[in-house]
């Protein structure tokens, strides 16, 4: 059980007409691991993410989550299980709602047994929401957003929105989180905070991560293993040190 990787992807392909955006990628994420995914723009990282998380249907290949075949499931089918969640490259929050509401929404479908029970107005429903609020407040405190928690999420800075998104994903206690460029467009001080949050979620909550990131310092400090994509194929795989030394990777992506 514990030897089995949490996410096991084999031969994943996605073509748009004649273009093979993702061309036969094998990748796995071990339990408790933080795995990095890097590559130049247009190398197929985001398409790969979309195929794994159900936002796009893969043309071929298999995706196994926790030993279960989830190939071709929709984004919602996968999300509803609460085991694997993802962030989006363009940060999105429920902008008219405050942080606490954002987090409560993110946890609701994992607390209520079905859609009908969410229409409940009795004590049972209220207790469930109260428990969600409790957890939301804990996570808001961990994320360092306590002072702004009643502000509409859309009014906050890009970095703070990233933190909201990250905290939202921890609401259902997932086993695996896929982050699409979590550090893009945020200032260095907040980068540290996001890195700390990822590390904390990994060590304290036992969440595994697969992270697309261009900031190579972040990748080397967080990840034990890095996979490099180029033109829809896997170019290299190894420890951060090996990747930085790899000649092919330097030519295709890192430069110099």
């Amino acid at each position, binding site marked *: 059980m514990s030897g089995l990787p949490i996410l096991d992807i084999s031969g994943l392909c996605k073509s748009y007409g004649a273009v093979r955006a993702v061309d036969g990628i094998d990748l796995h994420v071990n339990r408790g691991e933080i795995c990095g995914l890097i590559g130049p723009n247009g190398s197929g990282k985001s398409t790969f993410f979309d195929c794994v998380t159900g*936002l796009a249907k893969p043309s071929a290949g298999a995706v196994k989550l926790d030993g279960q075949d989830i190939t071709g499931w929709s984004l*919602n089918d996968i*999300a509803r299980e609460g085991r694997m969640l993802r962030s989006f490259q363009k940060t*999105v929050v429920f902008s008219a709602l*405050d942080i606490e509401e954002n987090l409560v929404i993110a946890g609701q479908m994992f607390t209520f047994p079905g*859609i009908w029970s969410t229409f409940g107005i009795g004590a049972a429903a209220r207790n469930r929401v109260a428990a969600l609020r409790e957890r939301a407040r804990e996570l808001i405190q961990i994320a360092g957003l306590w002072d702004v928690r009643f502000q509409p999420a859309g009014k906050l800075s890009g970095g703070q929105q990233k933190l909201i998104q990250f905290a939202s994903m921890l609401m259902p206690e997932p086993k695996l989180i896929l982050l699409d460029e979590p550090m893009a467009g945020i200032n260095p001080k907040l980068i540290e905070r996001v890195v700390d949050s990822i590390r904390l979620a990994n060590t304290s909550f036992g969440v595994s991560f697969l992270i697309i990131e261009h900031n190579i310092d972040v990748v080397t400090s967080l990840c034990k293993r890095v996979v490099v994509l180029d033109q829809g194929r896997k170019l290299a795989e190894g420890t951060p040190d090996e990747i930085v030394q790899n000649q092919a990777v330097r030519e295709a992506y890192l430069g110099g």
Partner: protein
Amino acid sequence: MTEIVRDQTVTAAEHKVATGPDLRVPFGLGLAALACVAPLFLGNYPLHAIIIALIFLLPAHGLNLLLGYTGLLSLAQAAFFGIGAYASALLAVHFGTPFYVNFLAAGLITGAIALPLGIPALRLRSTSFVMCTLGFVIIGQAIAKNWISLTRGDMGLAAVPRPYFALGPASFTVSGTVGFYYLVLVIAALATLAVYLIVRSPAGRNMIAIRENETLAESVGIPTWHYKLVVFMISAIFAGLGGSLYAHYLTVVSPLTFQMYYSTTMLIIVLGGGAGTISGVIFGSLLFVGLTEALRVAPELRMIAYGFFLLALVFYFPNGFAPLIGRFWSFLERRK
């Protein structure tokens, strides 16, 4: 400590209305009391205008759940309004069933019809969905015109009885304007309560999430399609109940009940009053439906005046009157 902070700050989720000693409760109670004694000092014509406004409040509440809370623009409300009116009228004319049976049946039938209509329609996105719902109104009117054996076509169904209640041997009929006013008032109040409970439930929060960002809502596990279908059905039920009241009030239904004009009226109530707020929609139906009724005294100028009024609204209150109501509350709070 959190409670203290909560009192000082404003949460967007509570529609930017500050909590704390709430003036809205006494104000609402005052309005309710005023509504109860209104027949004492209002003549029949203003009372009639209010009755029409309260009848339209039902489909407007439904549309508000769909548009204001879930973010789906539907023009189908007039279709469901018409279906409710015809269902109720046909039951009353053919079977002589009491009002509450017709009323509840109208809601159930429209809800049941909304299900097969919603399943394909909600697969469509944005503009296509709007066009599809527009089609429902046109098809509804065509059916009402041409299924003559059932609907008597353009002649419509006349002599729909006034609401009558029968419990065992006792029965009574709501006949006068005042009686109907109280009947509609009670139903409108119950409908408003129902909407309040829906939007305050966890489901209401999920609906807002869908309005704000559907893909994000899906990624946090909300089955958006199922919610949209359920809300579409609920909104249809509200419209059907409104149609039933309409049929029993006017005592006539005709294919004109399926008017695009009614759909736009409901849209104006919701957008003009303030989509995503309950008080805005109540205010909107009283203002916009009451206004058109009031403008009937100058029929040839009526639509022109109404048009100019709507233009002014769009320019000066692009979010409807709800923000204005909100400002009114904060003004009162500051004066205290």
